[in-house]
């Protein structure tokens, strides 16, 4: 059969979407975390991660991390081919220990944030961000 350009594009889009199943975190994640924390225990208080439940556009997902008093916050996209997103370091003169950025997600996965808090302890939080084909809304 003959394909129009549009149909070929649609099929291209179809092929690209085959990665949209939830992506499991790789074992490498643990080593990134260990490198950051030195293997220390992590609490869950003192760190907030804001991200959409479902990404409007997987290519540019807005996220924000905030941990009052923290000296550093690491962000990992657990299902991306290259999980480290960024590590934000806050100097003593930083007015707020908060950062926001946009990240690209290869598919539905967990975003993990780990903060080094003022007292030297670590906090960890995560959130699942779904990347979906879309359509079909009520």
């Amino acid at each position, binding site marked *: *059969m003959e*394909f*129009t350009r*549009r*149909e070929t*594009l*649609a*099929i291209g*889009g*179809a*092929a690209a*979407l*085959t990665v*949209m*199943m*939830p992506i499991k975190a790789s074992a490498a994640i643990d080593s990134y975390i260990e490198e950051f924390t030195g293997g220390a225990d992590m609490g869950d208080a003192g760190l907030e991660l*804001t991200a*959409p*439940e*479902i*990404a*409007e*556009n997987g290519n540019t997902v*807005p996220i924000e991390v905030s941990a009052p008093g923290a000296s550093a916050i690491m962000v990992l996209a657990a299902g991306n081919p290259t999980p480290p997103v960024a590590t934000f370091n806050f100097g003593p003169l930083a007015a707020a220990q908060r950062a*926001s950025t946009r990240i690209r997600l290869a598919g*539905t996965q967990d975003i993990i944030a780990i903060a080094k808090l003022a007292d030297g302890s670590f906090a960890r939080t995560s959130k*699942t961000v*779904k990347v*979906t*084909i*879309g*359509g*079909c*809304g*009520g």
Partner: protein
Amino acid sequence: MISRRDFLQASMAASAMLGASGFGQWSRLAAQQALTQDQLLQFDTFGNVSLIHVTDIHAQLKPIFFREPSVNIGVGDNRGAVPHVTGAEFRRLYGIEDNSYSHYALSSGDFEALARSYGKMGGLDRVSTVVNAIRADRPDAILLDGGDTWHGSYTCYHTQGQDMVNVMNGLKPDAMTFHWEFTLGSDRVAELVESLPYAALGQNIFDAEWDEPAELFPPYTFFERGGTKIAVIGQAFPYMPIANPRWMFPEYSFGIRDENMQAMVDEVRQQGAELVVCLSHNGFDVDKKMASIVTGIDVILSGHTHDALPEPVLVGETIIVASGSNGKFVSRVDLDVRNGQMLGFRHKLIPIFSDVIEPDPAIASLIDEQRAPFEAQLSEVIGQTDSLLYRRGNFNGTWDDLICDALLSERDAEIALSPGVRWGPSLIPGQDITREDIWNVTSMTYGQAYRTEMTGEFLKIVLEDVADNIFNPDPYYQQGGDMVRTGGLGYRVDVSKPQGERISEMVLTSTGEAIDPARNYVVAGWASVNEGTEGPQIWDVVESHIAKQGTVTVSQNDSVTVTGL
């Protein structure tokens, strides 16, 4: 001392026992076969504030038939909870007698016979009569429109929502929030919103570029009523750029943003709000979860998932009111607000029986005026139906079976896909199918019927993806639609499984052979969210198919097997 929560629970119990919420009386009235406007409107005015809620009208200016779902599966914490209770089970839960008019209005079962005895429902001229009656009891009642108002009909499409704006203005709402309105395109939405004599609210409508609140849509507005200061916070549909084409409104970003909702609740409380109302298009399960996370909301007026519940649901100290769709119902909520606290409520879901409630003549003529230029096209008879045509339900409805048949034959495809939207009125056997009827179930600004090829593997990904939008156990990951409808394709779905494992046994129904992941299949569908989709408009495809059939008969569809319930 009685806590506020006890007060609310006592209100709930009283309404259940005394029939103040209406349904208790309906059964008795139904037994007498006596249905009058006065009885439908009967309400002992209570407290000092009245809210009136309409939502998801989908541009249905005139009375329609609308069959409620027989399949509406709840998962996770919502398994077996309302609104995921249907048919006879729903009637037992609320003490509704079989064959009563509340049976007909609120639940599935014997729809065809009951539709013949009780007639059509809705019509904005009848809705207006109800609103006027409530305002006669309480002149400063607040009328709130939950959105999905400027979408869903021939006239709405051709006037780009102007018909609905004109008629709703006649009802004088006090505020509104949004969903399908945005599929008119952001320029048209801005034009209409700027013309509104009432507030266009959405705390979760953000500027996409800067991720800051969008100027055109304030998060909330205040009302001074009954000696109290009332804040109404808007919550637009959170997943518009995902469920609908993002390219039509690229300037905007949405999301649930419950942290911002909490900030807005705190802000209005600081400014002296004694009652906080959320006008929501989240969908019912999302509203329930939001009510459990955000504190300080007294009332959520819930829309999007088209559920009609005869009683509010209490989550923490928040009552959630679901008011149905397509103009079938108006909710009245009277509240007793004292010293900055909501102490009690009285609620009634008023069914709009179009043969019982007198039309408001002013609004009736306003509606006629909107329709007059299109009357010839609207009323043209395309065919007849021998079957009940309905859409609502988690899987295939007969309207969608017919649409899929049209796609398969008119677009010469092996498989058809039709979106699991929840709007679209029903037709009963013996009725003519007019062009208006076809548009009522297909009208949209991205209705092109595409024809393409998909591999078996990709078809599975599509089904898994959509299934997760309905059956993810966390409501925040649900988009509030139903399952994509399939023609020519059968499958098995286990709703209890995670994404990637729900769909199995996909077969081509024409031959019974299993879907080959590696093979390409010719697929026709409509309502693609991709920009530049090409093909004839779906209403033309369906019209051509029906015209060829003359009289349509839709046979029973057993192509989907559901497990894991």
